[in-house]
């Protein structure tokens, strides 16, 4: 089993939900495929989706919802099969 970190593409604020009153995109421990959206980064009031590049199990998020994030910062840990 290999571990893979999802890196933040942009500086801004990380969100795990599409909207404050909506459920999270994915839960810890969920199975994800390449292209699965796991969160949003808000940069200057514009939102960009964060997608995973490889499929596997999303072991856990490495940043909190609404945390400030930097480019290259690991956002989540994925275990590939």
């Amino acid at each position, binding site marked *: 089993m290999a571990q893979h970190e999802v890196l933040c593409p*942009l500086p801004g604020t990380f969100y795990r939900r599409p909207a404050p009153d909506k459920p999270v995109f994915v839960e810890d421990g969920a199975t994800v495929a390449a292209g699965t959206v796991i969160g949003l980064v808000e*940069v*200057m*009031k514009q939102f960009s989706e964060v997608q995973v590049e490889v499929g596997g199990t999303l072991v856990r998020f490495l940043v909190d919802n609404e945390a*400030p994030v930097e480019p290259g910062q690991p956002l989540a840990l994925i275990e590939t099969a």
Partner: protein
Amino acid sequence: MALSIRKVLVANRGEIAVRVIRAARELGLQTVAVFSDADADSLAVRLADQAVGIGPAQAAKSYLNVERLLDAVKASGADAVHPGYGFLSENAAFAEAVAQAGAVFIGPSPQAIRTMGNKAAAREAAMRAGVPCVPGSDGVVSSVDEAVAVAARIGYPIMIKASAGGGGRGIRVAASADELVQQMTVAQTEAQAAFGDGAVYLERFIRRARHVEVQILGDGERVVHCWERECSLQRRRQKIFEEAPSPALDAATREALCTSAVKLAQAVNYRGAGTLEYLYDDDSREFFFIEMNTRIQVEHPITEMITGVDLVREMIRVCGGETLSLAQSDIVIRGAAIECRINAEDPSRNFFPSPGKVTGLQLPAGPGVRIDSMVFDGCTIPPYYDSLLMKLVIHAETRDAALARAARALRELRVDGVKTTAALHAELLADPEVRAGAFHTNWLEGWLAARTAPAAAA
């Protein structure tokens, strides 16, 4: 009456915080900046007499955090709060909380913010004051027969709008009674499916609307206007380029428009600076009130340039207990002014945000050039807030001279390290339709689409 305040806290950031600090200092007042963790070394912090940290970078935890702001008011001993624009500037509860904390809110009364901030209440107030609003149905229209009767009164083409829609969604246009009969049911079904609410109402469809707005100033008793601004060049409902006066109005229409704004502001005993937004129909030459902003606006400097009135100083003075120093006859239009919003965005990548460190800066200067800015060489533009870096404000004796001067100033401007919209403005200034003032609120999006897909446009 003398000014009752001596220390102003600016509950904002960026260029408007700098603008307010400048006006307050010229009045002999002490100034307090507030800053989030991301703005600790901002220009406003550098320029203010005092600066107070108010929490984490995200606006919800700092610039929108009433408790932290009130703590900063107490800690600094400020006796007045200027809210700037955006953030809490049109929040009546914040205005009340500031007053309860014993400080002066530099803006209108909470009551006026509430009335004018609610679209339906503002429309009612406008109609009571005899100010024209976009003709429409009186609320929800439920049957096809009722729709046809309403449309006969308003005229065609007519818009069917979903009550629960907004931001341009849930709108259909009918050009005739036949089309209206056809589309009513479809519109109701669509609204039900899209918004979970099938209610629709009718409104006059304006094919080519301009966004024209009137600047007013009031002291709670008397109101004057400072003429109009035209802000039709918008992308996604964000203004990009504004000018004053509007190139579309003749003298009689201008007078009627501005007088109507004064009537409405007077009806709510307005205090401070405010802006009444109108749609102007190029085809019928009618204007219609749409809403009022109860705060200073981003584009206020173009009004200052053509009238010589310092709007921020005046709003501080009247909210600090003085009466308006200006009579309407004192406020005359001199020349023309343009504002180009220089945003940290990349126009070649669909306006993608471009925060980061400014590694080099050359600002234009010379006659008729004013820059309202948050930028200095070496500063960092944080990703957490809007992308406005600076406003290039140009004044000249005529509109043509202002266009030429703006183009000249843009050639002098250089911002290294982040992408900006400066080159886009240079292109806009060279466009024949912009030069002729021949645009409307959908013009810029069409222009941008044609620019990125020239083959499709041909």
